């Protein structure tokens, strides 16, 4: 933000406060409590919807039909709604960031997990020797001269051995996207409409397609169970007395506020606008979309952005329709810099509108991978508008950080934030 406007904002805000008998400004501990309560509710909803997903995948395995597969896919999409809203807690909270890679690692070289289409996927990668390891088809793998016994596909094999095996982040063996790949398979439609189209018979023991259906079933069960275990851990972390809640509650006033704002800005800018959206736009590559098998990226982006808004406005609408809310960061900022707060609220709304456009176009058949196609100028523009809205939102957050004098606050919490100097100065 421009210095000029920063100063005038402060003057305006203080004049405003002087002349109007204001409502009580929330204390930091109240704001942190709201933040932690929303985190808890969001992770509880994520856990509950993952349990629903597990019921659906169990039904699929008991009776693998197109109908039961569709239901499992619908359950996965529903499970993304609360989870994506939790991503705002990842940045700034070291406990969440260290854990996140187990549940939402992306992008992935899916050839590690199951069969892939050669002409589409290619046969090798400069970066990854296990690019086509296909653990579902292979009971043992060779990694850097060491033999790995993969004869039993268990949660432990996935989480302790396979995940990020050989030190390669793209070797994603667990989490939402591994499950997504199992439910949908590769999206072979390029930047044309259509998602992955794995047949239900890939899970059928009698009429197995794709080979090794028994191991594919084991994989789906193990990955779903792991997701539940991992989400339970994060729910516990945000309960009263839980470690994540404790960590942010123990922070000084400025540090706690800085943590919340940093989480918002890091998700909005570097992660969502940059890594997950603009990069895909510039590469025009259908695999550069967050939910690339299911083509659910528009909703994932929408709810990522919504999570930022929840945290700022101190209110979260749960999957059962009830609301968790409390004293908000917005009110705290408003009391000190009313203009900056209003600006932030406007930007959050603008981002939501831009995300809604992605959702609307997807409903018309133009999912994210179609929008980023190299010949889709108007689709490209819709995606660019979302990037621009997030960038403006980030500027509004920076403005607040400047006004609240939070520059140079030491933060820890994510890989990219291990050097606080880089972010908040």
């Amino acid at each position, binding site marked *: 933000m*421009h*210095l*000029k406007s*920063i*100063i005038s904002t*402060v*003057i305006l805000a*203080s*004049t405003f*406060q*002087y002349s109007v008998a*204001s409502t*009580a*400004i929330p*204390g*930091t*501990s109240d704001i942190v409590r709201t933040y932690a309560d929303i985190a808890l509710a969001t992770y509880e909803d994520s856990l509950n919807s993952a349990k629903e997903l597990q019921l659906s995948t169990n039904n699929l395995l008991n009776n693998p039909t197109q109908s039961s597969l569709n239901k499992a896919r619908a359950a996965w999409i529903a499970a993304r709604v609360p989870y994506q809203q939790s991503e705002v807690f990842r940045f700034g909270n070291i406990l969440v960031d260290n854990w996140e890679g187990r549940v939402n690692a992306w*992008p992935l*070289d899916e050839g590690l997990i199951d069969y892939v289409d050669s002409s589409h996927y*290619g046969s090798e*990668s*400069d*970066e990854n020797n296990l690019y086509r390891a296909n653990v579902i088809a292979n009971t043992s793998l060779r990694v850097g001269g060491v033999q790995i016994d993969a004869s039993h596909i268990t949660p432990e094999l996935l989480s302790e051995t396979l995940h990020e095996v*050989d*030190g390669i*982040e*793209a070797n994603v063996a667990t989490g939402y996207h591994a499950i997504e790949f199992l439910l949908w398979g590769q999206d072979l439609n390029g930047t044309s409409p259509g998602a992955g189209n794995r047949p239900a018979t890939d899970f059928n023991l009698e009429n197995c397609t794709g080979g090794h259906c028994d191991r594919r079933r084991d994989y789906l069960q193990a990955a779903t169970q792991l997701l539940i275990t991992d989400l339970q851990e994060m729910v516990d972390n945000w309960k009263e007395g839980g470690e994540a809640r404790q960590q942010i509650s123990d922070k000084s*006033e400025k540090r706690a506020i800085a943590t919340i704002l940093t989480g918002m800005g*890091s*998700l*909005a*800018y*570097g*992660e*969502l606008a*940059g890594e997950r959206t603009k990069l895909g736009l*510039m*590469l*025009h*590559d259908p695999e550069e979309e967050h939910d690339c098998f299911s083509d659910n990226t528009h909703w994932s982006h929408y709810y990522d952005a919504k999570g930022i808004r929840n945290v700022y406005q101190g209110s979260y609408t749960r999957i059962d329709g009830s609301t968790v809310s409390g004293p908000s960061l917005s009110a705290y900022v408003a*009391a*000190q810099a009313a203009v900056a707060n209003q600006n932030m609220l406007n930007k959050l709304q603008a981002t939501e509108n831009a995300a809604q456009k992605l959702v609307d176009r997807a409903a018309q058949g133009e999912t994210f991978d179609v929008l980023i196609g*190299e010949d889709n*100028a108007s689709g490209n523009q819709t995606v660019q508008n979302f990037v621009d809205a997030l960038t403006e939102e*980030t*500027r509004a957050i*920076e403005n607040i*950080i400047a*006004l609240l*004098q939070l*520059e*140079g606050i030491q933060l820890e919490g*994510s*890989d*990219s934030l291990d*050097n606080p*100097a*880089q*972010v908040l*100065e």
Partner: protein
Amino acid sequence: MNSMSNTLWPVFLGISLLVIIAGKLHAAPTEQQWQSLNQSLVEEHILPRYRVLQLSSAKLASSTTALCRQPGQAQLEKTRQAFQQTMNAWQEVQHIQFGPIETLMRNFSMQFWPDKKNLIGKQLNRLLQQQDPNTLSTDYLYKASIGVKGLPALERLLFTSSLTELTNNSYRCQLSQAVSVYIADNSQATLDEWIHGYKDSLSSAGREESYYDSHQEAAVDMMKSMIEPVEAIRDQKILRPLGDGKIRPKRSESWRSQRSLRNIRLNIASLSHLYSGTTTSVDSLLREQGRTAQADNIITLFNRLETQLEAVPAPLITSLYQPETVSQLLQISDALQQLDHLLSAEMIAMNIQLGFNSRDGD
């Protein structure tokens, strides 16, 4: 804070914020000082580098054109040399990530890297298999993926193709030519827009016609260009190839043209020039603010880094396997982290807020 009376404390806070901001402004450089710094950096640091990039990329384009017309080992060598010159020029201005280079995603078009999912290889192979003549036009490249139209794609084409593959006016040679022309066009446009427009916008900061509200705001872009690359160089160019104990030389930048180390040396030399090489410089401003000791430390660190980098054996694609090289690089990584901290601390002292950067969230 909670214990304070609800009616009084916002007033108190408003006043104290004003005092703090006013106080900070007083300690920080003046608008005039920022203006002088920006002007020096544009005239003596940025424009000369874009001129060299424009010249070298134009030579590369004509060299590639000549290669396709009359292929021969000598001309291939000459073209590879021209690529090296262009990459030298790019590495010296890679840190400037604002202004015309940002327009139309030119920065990413010049160089998409690191390529963690091997997308350049995949997308380039697709083009080479299809051999569609329509993909050889500038119009096509304009809208094409950043993976196939920049220096890394051209590096693959020039350094992994055999002479035979480039003869008979092959698609491969024509694509090399098209990409090098695209790079030259991009460089030319960037330079032109700096000279006719952006430069004036910077010098007229604060006025209606300028992109910037103040000279200080313009200086923020300059300071980001100096500081953000320090962490990026450390993480991407040094630590990623060291791969947490398992050496991964192919994660090095420009390994196919065997210039990974040279890139880092040029980056650091250029950042050092940005810091202290111009008439008015960040270094001179710090000294005027009375921060001589800090300025001395930064100079010392830059010098140490340049010496340390000189001692590392090239090319990294092979030398990385030597434990001594690894330990040298780890020391360089530490020095870069220290440099990052020192520079960042001075930004606070000079009231520069860098904000979020695009790598947050990685």
